[in-house]
């Protein structure tokens, strides 16, 4: 009886080993997938990060920070020659262009020339949400203006757009894992739903790529990233801004140049 049991046990072990060998007939291998750029920029040698219409956060100058970050990233990656020029005050220009469109145009006035500022528009406009940003979007379609900028900087690829970086607060049930020990002293992790007050930031940039030779928009891309922390956690706005920008930078760079995405796949035998 014992011999038979032993024999059955041995057979089972052999079966298990055979099964395990069959199951492990695979190999993990690192791969790098090249992703082609979304935009053909072969006609441009230079790139000008012109500036952005930005708002919604007093602690972070999203326009300046985005210009600085994109320029340094493009320089580091060696993607075209980056023009180091002053950032354009796009919010003011958009405001002036908007006023020019509303008023009857002067016969000798070019579309690209900003009109004199009326006294009530000298205040800095408040941009709190996407709706506030919308009224300035017409600037990106102002072909004459961008053509003029292009001529000034030897017809580069111009990158502009709008950045909304706003604080956000949300409360609701959040599922998290709680560690505990059962009566036998074993560690148990159970999902627990708790009501939490959370705050953080939302970053919603729209990048507009403009042909500096014609002033026409070549490509527009909008992203949205958000981050939420426990309400008691104090995270500086600037570090959240960089964390969120970090997430979307590969996609931004992939618009201009091929990217290699690293990953692991399984080869089967």
């Amino acid at each position, binding site marked *: 009886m014992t011999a038979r049991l032993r024999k059955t046990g041995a057979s089972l072990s052999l079966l298990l080993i055979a099964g395990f060998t069959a199951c492990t007939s695979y190999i993990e291998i690192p791969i790098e*997938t090249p992703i082609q750029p979304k935009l053909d920029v072969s006609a441009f040698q230079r790139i000008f990060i012109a500036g952005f219409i930005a708002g919604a956060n007093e602690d972070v100058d999203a326009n300046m920070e985005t210009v600085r970050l994109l320029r340094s990233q493009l320089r580091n990656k060696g993607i075209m020659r980056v023009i180091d020029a002053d950032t354009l005050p796009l919010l003011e220009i958009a405001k002036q262009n908007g006023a020019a469109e509303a008023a009857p145009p002067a016969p000798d006035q070019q579309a690209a020339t900003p009109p004199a500022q009326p006294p009530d528009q000298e205040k800095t406009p408040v941009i709190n949400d996407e709706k506030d940003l919308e009224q300035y979007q017409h600037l990106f379609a102002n072909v004459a203006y961008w053509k003029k900028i292009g001529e000034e900087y030897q017809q580069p690829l111009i990158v502009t757009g709008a950045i909304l970086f706003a604080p956000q607060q949300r409360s609701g049930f959040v599922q998290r894992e709680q560690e505990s020990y059962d009566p036998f002293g074993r560690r148990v992790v159970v999902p627990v739903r708790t009501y939490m007050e959370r705050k953080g930031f939302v970053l919603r940039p729209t990048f507009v790529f403009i042909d500096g030779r014609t002033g026409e928009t070549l490509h527009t891309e*909008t992203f949205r990233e958000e981050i939420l922390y426990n309400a008691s956690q104090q995270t500086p706005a600037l570090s959240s801004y960089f964390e969120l920008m970090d997430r979307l930078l590969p996609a931004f760079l992939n618009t201009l140049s091929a990217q290699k995405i690293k990953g692991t796949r399984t*080869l089967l035998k």
Partner: protein
Amino acid sequence: MTSRHVALALFLALASAPTAWADQRGQAKEQVEFGIQVAQRGLWKEAIYRWERAAQLDPTYAAAFNNLAVAYEHEGQLAKARAAYDKALALEPNNALVRQNYDLFKEINDRAAQKDGR
């Protein structure tokens, strides 16, 4: 006499069919294993050749199509990779490893296909 010959030929053909199939699978397996060896050394084009050969030898061999898909992915040939993953999954719909590869591939493929922003 003639009918006896026909019957014998039929019997031999039927008897040798499983052997021929096993041979094809054996050869395909060899190609797949050799492909893995060269892929591990970074010779992906050679690996593609081997796995394409394996898929020709045995069109029911899911591993050959899975590996082929991985190699196409590595070479940036995303449309071909998708077709090869589809074939591998059609052959073995419950293979968790192929499914996992495919899910990872889809993430990259969707990103590459994303032309007009999110």
